[in-house]
């Protein structure tokens, strides 16, 4: 009986260089857990409300009494702002990426497996959407949906919702093209032909063989995309179409950038938080990519 698993020296001599060590894993996941925890339970923290203006304590520096990270120019506490911002920034980013991935992924995979007119239509949709600049799209959507009427200040959709929708629309073609490419490559593999020859239905083949193999590469990009969306939101905030000022990390940046010379920490601290979060997300993206590369190199 010859059952010893494969032992080729090529796969062993090629040691994976640059594989992130376990320390990075713990740091990244630790940070993300903190962020997610804060997003959920931030309300229970014993902090002043994020939009409470403490007019007696404008522009306090770091480590002041009662305001651990200081306050910005209108008295809002920086730490509370970060806590609340976690919910907004992560909420927008994760929701947009998740929904975008699901829709884009489904479209891409079905297009790749079906080919023919379905593929042409979906690809055309992807290409057109990718051609629309994010900023223009968001501006238009905010103007159409999130701007209150002159006579009714509370009308219009909440900013955050509009942002989620427009960012989802941006993510769909990105993840969709990736999914399509990956599904195309997997569809060409012999084992898919084998599945057909056994007599599996096309739907079963998609479900059992194609989707589970495409998912890992999508996950890797999804993590990276989440980081990018957080940064994009910041950019949009600076243009005035992000979340309401101070409500998210990006809009904290936007709100306080004018005060960079006077109270630099009100800009730098949110920027630092964004940076750390994006790094942690990128770390996971890389981690999944390496695991996939590892596996695919053996095939």
């Amino acid at each position, binding site marked *: 009986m010859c*059952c010893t698993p494969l032992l080729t020296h090529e796969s062993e001599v090629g040691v994976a260089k640059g594989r992130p060590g376990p320390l990075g894993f713990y740091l990244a996941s630790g940070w993300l857990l903190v962020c997610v925890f804060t997003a959920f339970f931030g309300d229970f923290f014993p902090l002043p409300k994020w939009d409470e203006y403490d007019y007696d304590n404008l522009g306090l520096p770091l480590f002041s009494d009662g305001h651990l990270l200081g306050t910005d120019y209108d008295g809002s506490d920086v730490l509370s702002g970060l806590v609340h911002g976690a919910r907004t920034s992560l909420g927008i980013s994760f929701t947009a990426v998740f929904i975008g991935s699901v829709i884009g992924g489904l479209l891409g995979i079905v297009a790749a497996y079906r080919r023919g007119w379905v593929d042409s239509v979906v690809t055309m949709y992807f290409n057109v959407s990718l051609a629309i600049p994010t900023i223009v799209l968001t501006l238009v959507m905010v103007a159409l949906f999130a701007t209150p009427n002159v006579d009714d200040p509370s009308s219009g959709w909440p900013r955050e919702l509009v942002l989620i929708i427009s960012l989802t629309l941006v993510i769909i073609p990105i993840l969709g093209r990736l999914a399509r490419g990956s599904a195309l490559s997997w569809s060409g593999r*012999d084992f898919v032909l*084998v*599945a057909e*020859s056994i*007599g599996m*239905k096309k739907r079963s083949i998609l479900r*059992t063989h194609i989707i589970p193999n495409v998912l890992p590469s999508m996950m890797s990009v999804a993590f990276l995309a989440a980081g990018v969306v957080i940064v994009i939101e910041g950019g949009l905030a600076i243009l005035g179409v992000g979340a309401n000022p101070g409500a998210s990390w990006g809009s904290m940046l936007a709100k306080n950038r004018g005060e960079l010379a006077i109270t630099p920490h009100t800009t730098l601290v949110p920027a630092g938080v964004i940076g750390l979060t994006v790094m942690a997300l990128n770390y996971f993206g890389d981690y999944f990519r390496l695991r996939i590369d590892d596996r695919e190199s053996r095939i």
Partner: protein
Amino acid sequence: MTNSTVSHLRDDREILLRVENLVVEYTTKAGTVRAVSDVSLDVAAGETVAIVGESGCGKSTLAKGVMQLIPTVSGKVLLNGNDLASLKGEELRRARPNIQMIFQDSISSLDPHLRVRELVEQPLKVWGRGTDEERRAKVDDLLRSVNLDPSIVGDRKPTEFSGGQCQRISIARALSIEPQLLVCDEPVSSLDVSIQAQILNIIQAMKIRYGLSLLFISHDLAVVRAISDCVYVMYLGKVCEVAPPERLASSPAHHYTHALVSAVPIPDPTVGRRRAILEGEPPSPTNPPSGCRFRTRCPAATEKCAAEEPQLREVSPGQFVACHHPRG
């Protein structure tokens, strides 16, 4: 080299598979290629029929065409009298359990994220054969019959195994629903020399155990000689000779077959052979020569060969050749 007459097909024996005038085309930038050009063959119950040829002759395309995994332009593929080429969708799907296939790249034939047991069990699940218990027992039995220990390999993934082991798993999987015909597309070509023999022996053993018929595609004449009852030689999409293997090796009638046979290296330095070394390169498949396709490289070509395409005709019992001036 046309087979529009199907004179070499048999009516007297219990014929399991009968392919008539099969044509398979695909389009490339350079034009339409007729990879399989009017090919007919048959496989009797319990028989091993081999298709040999070099790259570009269309043998793999023929295998996929017979399996209806790629669309065929015209022709019939009669399995137990049922024409697979005329079936579509669900009807075709239902016909599949009777004819299974093993591919050349054994590792790529297995889904890397599934475990061995799940892979071998798949056909049984698709066709709802047996309960969970029964299926598990059958899978274990199948693995044992291909010399793999189910307790060791069952829960592992294909990437942990060598080419030879993956091929065994593929064989186990193909046989789980007990097809009547097994199509083997170059099953041992990418395996190491000493592993080839192991896999060939397993295929032979399975053939006996399950009463299979085999359609065996290969470029290796020596392999084909060892296991087949009847050999078809293909060149540029057409069948040029059909014969039992000993006859093919000892007195090939077609000039291409002769060149092929004399080119095969024999591990014996004392065998001195007259090498018929072919001149030139194979012609482009998009623009094959008129008349006999082999005439551009054939030492015996005449004007007739350019004008008229030769048909398969019997030159000795069981040996058919498509040539105007066959050898011997």
